[in-house]
């Protein structure tokens, strides 16, 4: 059944979704721990060094990785730089407004960024050209184009693909301090695959990969990242509250889901 959120008030929508959940059902007929189909669009859509436009159900995101070179931070001379930014484009939802990233955009950017860093997925030390002097700087720009829920997971998947595809001209710092940009390419080495999995709690049940309507009526929500060793490497509880058991359950489901998503990502890189 097609569902038009504007046909029902928020209260009716909540009751409708809660009733469904009480009967072990979801609006779009998925199982509670089933993700929506993921589609990776073919084509060149940006001038980034690595990019991915993906659909997670009707949610669409476009991630681009731009590279630059520069000095490392003084306290991490042996590491490159990763800068993550999320834009909730006003094209993606009637509720998004133009302007600098708000609280939600900043949180999402940091949740994706934290998953990648906590697993050191891109090996920040491999971005060093000359220790303390010159490093690659990667700008991970995450664009939300169409918002039908679960931006965290969609952006994480697209970010991993975009990073895994990133190729940059090889750079050498010569002894006289001059910088030589070579024809040859240097490729980001994706060492880990920390994937975020988002759950909402409705009527006391955990639902994986919520659509927008589910997010809007959920009692609570949480995002957990799983690394290639199937360890929890990052968590962000968002609104509401969970019992300890619910969180342990969510981590278990996420662990079970990791291989299929990771496999898909590897295939398209």
């Amino acid at each position, binding site marked *: 059944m097609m569902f038009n959120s504007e046909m029902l008030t928020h209260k009716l929508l909540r009751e409708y979704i809660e009733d469904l959940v009480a009967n072990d059902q979801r609006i779009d007929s998925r199982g509670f721990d089933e993700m929506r189909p993921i589609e990776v669009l073919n084509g*060149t*859509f*940006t*001038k*980034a060094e690595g*990019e991915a436009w993906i659909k997670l159900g*009707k949610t*669409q995101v*476009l991630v*681009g*990785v*731009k*590279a*630059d*070179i*520069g000095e490392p931070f003084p306290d991490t001379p042996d590491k490159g730089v990763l800068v993550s*930014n999320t*834009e909730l*484009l*006003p*094209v*993606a*939802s*009637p509720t998004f407004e*133009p302007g*600098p990233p708000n609280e939600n955009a900043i949180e999402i950017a940091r949740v994706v960024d934290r998953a990648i860093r906590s697993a050191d997925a891109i090996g920040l030390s491999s971005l060093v050209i000359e220790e303390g002097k010159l490093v690659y700087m990667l*700008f991970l*720009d995450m*664009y939300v*184009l*169409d*918002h*039908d829920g679960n931006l965290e997971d969609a952006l994480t998947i697209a970010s991993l693909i975009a990073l895994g595809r990133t190729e*940059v*001209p090889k*750079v050498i710092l010569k002894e006289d301090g001059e*910088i030589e*940009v070579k024809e040859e390419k240097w490729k980001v080495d994706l060492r880990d695959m920390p994937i975020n999995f988002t759950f909402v709690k409705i009527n006391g049940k955990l639902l994986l990969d919520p659509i927008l309507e589910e997010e809007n009526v959920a009692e609570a929500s949480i995002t957990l990242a799983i690394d290639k060793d199937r360890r929890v490497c990052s968590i962000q509880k968002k609104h509401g509250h969970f019992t300890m058991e619910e969180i342990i359950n969510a981590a278990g489901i996420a662990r079970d889901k990791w291989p299929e998503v990771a496999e898909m990502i590897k295939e398209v890189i």
Partner: protein
Amino acid sequence: MPLYVEKKPDVLITEDGVRTDGRLPHEIRPIRMTVGILDKADGSAFIEWGGNRILTAVFGPREVHPKHLALPDKALIRTRYNMAPFSTPERKRPGPDRRSVELSKVIREAIKPAIFVENYPGSVIDIFVEVLRSDAGTRVAGVNAASLALANAGIAMRGLVAACAVGRVENFIICDPNHDEDMWGDADMPMAMLMESEKITLLQTDGPMTDEQFKEALEMGRRCIRFLYEMQKEALKRPYLIVERSVFEQGEV
């Protein structure tokens, strides 16, 4: 520190009028238009034109916030032209710069004459032009796509607005300048017309043209715009389908 250095080509156009991408003066780059690609927007369109990738969306007519901006007798039209950080060779800092502010205004003024604003008093129509990849001519590409997104949103319009740039390289008037011609050419002139009355709703010029060149350029612009208009109509006939043309043979003088 830039990883990519640009160089001016030795020859921008040959004596025979062959351009840096092999086109002749009257040839337009390949174009694809797709209407209705977004679920949450009231209307949307995506245009691929040469190396440009531009996504447009329309929301409205809807309530104005803050309320004091509402106009009692007509719709408020707001337009935002925005370049993605990854749309350029060097990363662009997010947020509006002066060029974006100007282009947002210019695009709004290109589109607004087409809208029956008096049909929607007190409301706002928001038009967003998101440049995902830029390759010369983003503003005219954006106008074409914005026009489609408005139609896709069901906004009452006098007609479509179609747009194309023309330019001058040495003594050649060329249509649809590419990146090299935009950077190092002698003049650039983006144009838009409200079809079918063919009123000019966007016209800018940067670079000198003699009286004859100027007239020739206007005429070539009109021709190109007519071609774009045909594509727009086709794209609207089959929403959600891709309309694509390799237009090297089109727009012949």
